[in-house]
């Protein structure tokens, strides 16, 4: 969308693809509007635009558009409140002498998009929460072609492979707002479709996402979906093995069990002599390991490989090996420079819903910060074409 087109929309007081806000103070309304544009219920198949710094009647609000404001607005994309992550652009423009911040929101490939567990849509000039019927229309809009791995149907699976109990008890409550669930008259099939765990009828078959997050035994259908944990008694792969586990099960079980394994393996030394207070010092900060392993689960490739995520725990270091190289717009040059992309965007959504991700794009920085605080050297990344590994060394 170029300046010309934006300028036309700016002047068009009637278009339902435009929303105006005098200031950025009402963060919730802005996020609701982004969510509604991403859902594109009227099916414009064109971006929706938010102008910030202009009144409802089109007059200029004379808001000064600072860099900080633009950065904050751009941050909405990755804070994980709007799921799946919206595709948006934030720019500063001047139309008819009025300085505004512009947010251009692309319609989503995989609606319904939710903000805080509620599906916002646009109905004419206003915003509303989608009704059952509207959600059904959004589900059907999900395009069949060109889907990321996690949204593709898994032909060999049936709904019998889904653990509906886990889905209803744990996932639904984490993904949807309480009032939405309370008023919910949807059948379980509708719920599965609406959370992208199954494809919309007539096929109605589980997606890879559904099997990974709430499958009874996902590993049988997606063979690489497990973590191989090996603890060596030494520094080499050939040294004797002290402990080994294959951690599998649905995403919820897998991540929880992994946390327990980490808890059990980290040793915490207590220093009781140098200060009046006892100083506790773990050999590895658990938060850093959690971030790196969760990253591996989220970003790895589950296609064309049956390899698991490997966590090799040596006496002086931990190596996390991950099948699948860098993805999308991330390359060796810009890796860890703030550029992020998602091979499995809907798995990322599920992990955010379950609380395993706080915000998108901060996993590695958090890990590095925690390592530094704990006195460990920074994590080292080895990036190959078809796999990625990260090494974390013991605190001295």
């Amino acid at each position: 969308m170029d300046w010309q087109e934006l300028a036309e929309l700016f002047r068009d007081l009637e278009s339902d693809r435009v929303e105006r806000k005098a200031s950025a103070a009402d963060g919730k309304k802005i996020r609701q509007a982004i969510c509604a544009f991403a859902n594109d219920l009227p099916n414009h198949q064109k971006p929706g635009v938010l102008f910030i710094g202009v009144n409802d009647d089109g007059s200029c609000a004379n808001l000064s558009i600072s860099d900080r404001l633009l950065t904050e607005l751009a941050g909405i994309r990755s804070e994980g409140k709007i799921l799946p992550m919206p595709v948006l652009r934030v720019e500063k423009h001047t139309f008819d002498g009025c300085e505004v911040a512009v947010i251009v929101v692309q319609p989503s490939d995989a609606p319904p998009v939710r903000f805080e567990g509620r599906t916002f849509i646009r109905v004419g000039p206003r915003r509303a929460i989608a009704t059952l019927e509207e959600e059904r229309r959004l589900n059907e809009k999900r395009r069949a072609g060109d889907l990321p791995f996690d949204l593709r149907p898994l032909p060999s699976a049936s709904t019998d492979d889904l653990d509906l109990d886990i889905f209803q008890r744990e996932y639904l409550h984490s993904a949807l707002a309480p009032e939405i669930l309370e008023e919910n008259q949807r059948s379980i099939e509708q719920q599965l479709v609406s959370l992208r765990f199954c494809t919309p009828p007539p096929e109605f078959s589980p997606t890879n996402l559904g099997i990974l997050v709430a499958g009874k035994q996902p590993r049988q259908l997606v063979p690489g979906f497990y973590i191989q944990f090996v603890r060596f008694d030494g520094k080499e792969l050939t040294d004797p093995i002290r402990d080994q586990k294959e951690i599998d099960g649905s995403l919820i079980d897998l991540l929880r069990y992994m946390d327990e394994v980490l808890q059990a393996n980290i040793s915490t030394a207590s220093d009781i002599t140098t200060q009046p207070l006892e100083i506790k010092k773990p050999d590895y900060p658990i938060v850093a390991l959690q971030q790196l392993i969760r990253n591996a689960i989220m970003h790895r490739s589950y296609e064309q490989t049956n390899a698991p995520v490997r966590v090799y725990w040596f006496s002086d270091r931990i190596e996390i090996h991950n099948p699948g190289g860098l993805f999308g717009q991330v390359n060796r040059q810009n890796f860890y420079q703030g550029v992020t992309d998602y091979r499995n965007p809907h798995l990322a959504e599920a992990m955010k819903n379950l609380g395993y991700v706080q915000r998108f794009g901060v996993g590695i920085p958090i890990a590095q910060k925690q390592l530094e605080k704990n006195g460990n050297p920074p994590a080292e990344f080895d990036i190959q074409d078809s796999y990625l590994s990260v090494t974390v060394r013991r605190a001295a």
Partner: protein
Amino acid sequence: MNPPIVTFLNNKGGVGKTSLVYHLAWMYFDLGLKVVAADLDPQANLTAAFIDEERLEEVWEGNSDRNTVFRCVQPLLKGIGDIAAPKLENLEKIEDGLYLFIGDLQLSGFEDELSSQWSACLDGKERPFRVISAFWRLLTQAATDSEADIVLVDLGPNLGAINRAALIAADYMVVPLSPDLFSLQGLKNLGPTVVRWRKEWQERIPKNPATDFSLPTGQMQPIGYIILQHGVRFDRPVKAFQRWIEQIPTTYHTEVLQESPESLVPASNSSTDVNRLALIKHYQSLMPMAQESRKPIFHLKPADGAIGAHLSAVRNVYFDFKELAEKIATKIELPLPSLET
């Protein structure tokens, strides 16, 4: 129009008041309001609930001159000027639209000054009025800057000068109680004291010589009580709680509202009393889980350890607090935005 300032006061500590204010602040935010939570308790527990120790160290050890309640009143205390009104960036932004006015352990140092200036107001000098109205002016300034819809104030468990100044700043007062002898006895002190403060402030207002700053009207209207079971000790017989719960409506009616016992609607037993805003149950293991994750209970996720049966309990807590938030909103005539716009 200034947004309503609601304080939560009880002169018995440990009833779970701070956690109540914390959860209500989040609930109002979740319901779409812009909220300022202000920590006027020198113990600063509300502050500790919102932000972690690392950030607190930055704030308290840092040099910014007006990032806590105490630092804002400090110039006034030193006698070098008036309050330093906070700017939006001095409030701690928890979320877009949820701000914390950070408390400070040093705030207790303001107690003596507030105490002596209270009687000095009667002499008709200007400074005592500036001192006594400091909290109100800070809170309204913070609310204006953040465009808040509601201000929630947490107070320490006593009837001292800080709480008196805070109550004068308040439009409304909610009394959190636990169902025990201490809370009930506490009500008998609290009620008459608040009534006296209100009256004494009304006597003082006309004596203000300065016209360049406004004073709070000192409404401090009691809007009801909340029974919290957090403070309950389960080693005492459960039947005893019921006994205290039964006595609360009458005590509240006569001591806090200062109305004759006869005017109490006879049908008001403990559960139908119009003044009872809520009975908040003990949430057992959810509370420590929430504190550890630094979230309100109703935001807990499986990753925080809320799994299986916990999750449906989490949902119940959401509706408990939603109901309470709506009830308070009705009492103070605060419109809640509907999610549809």
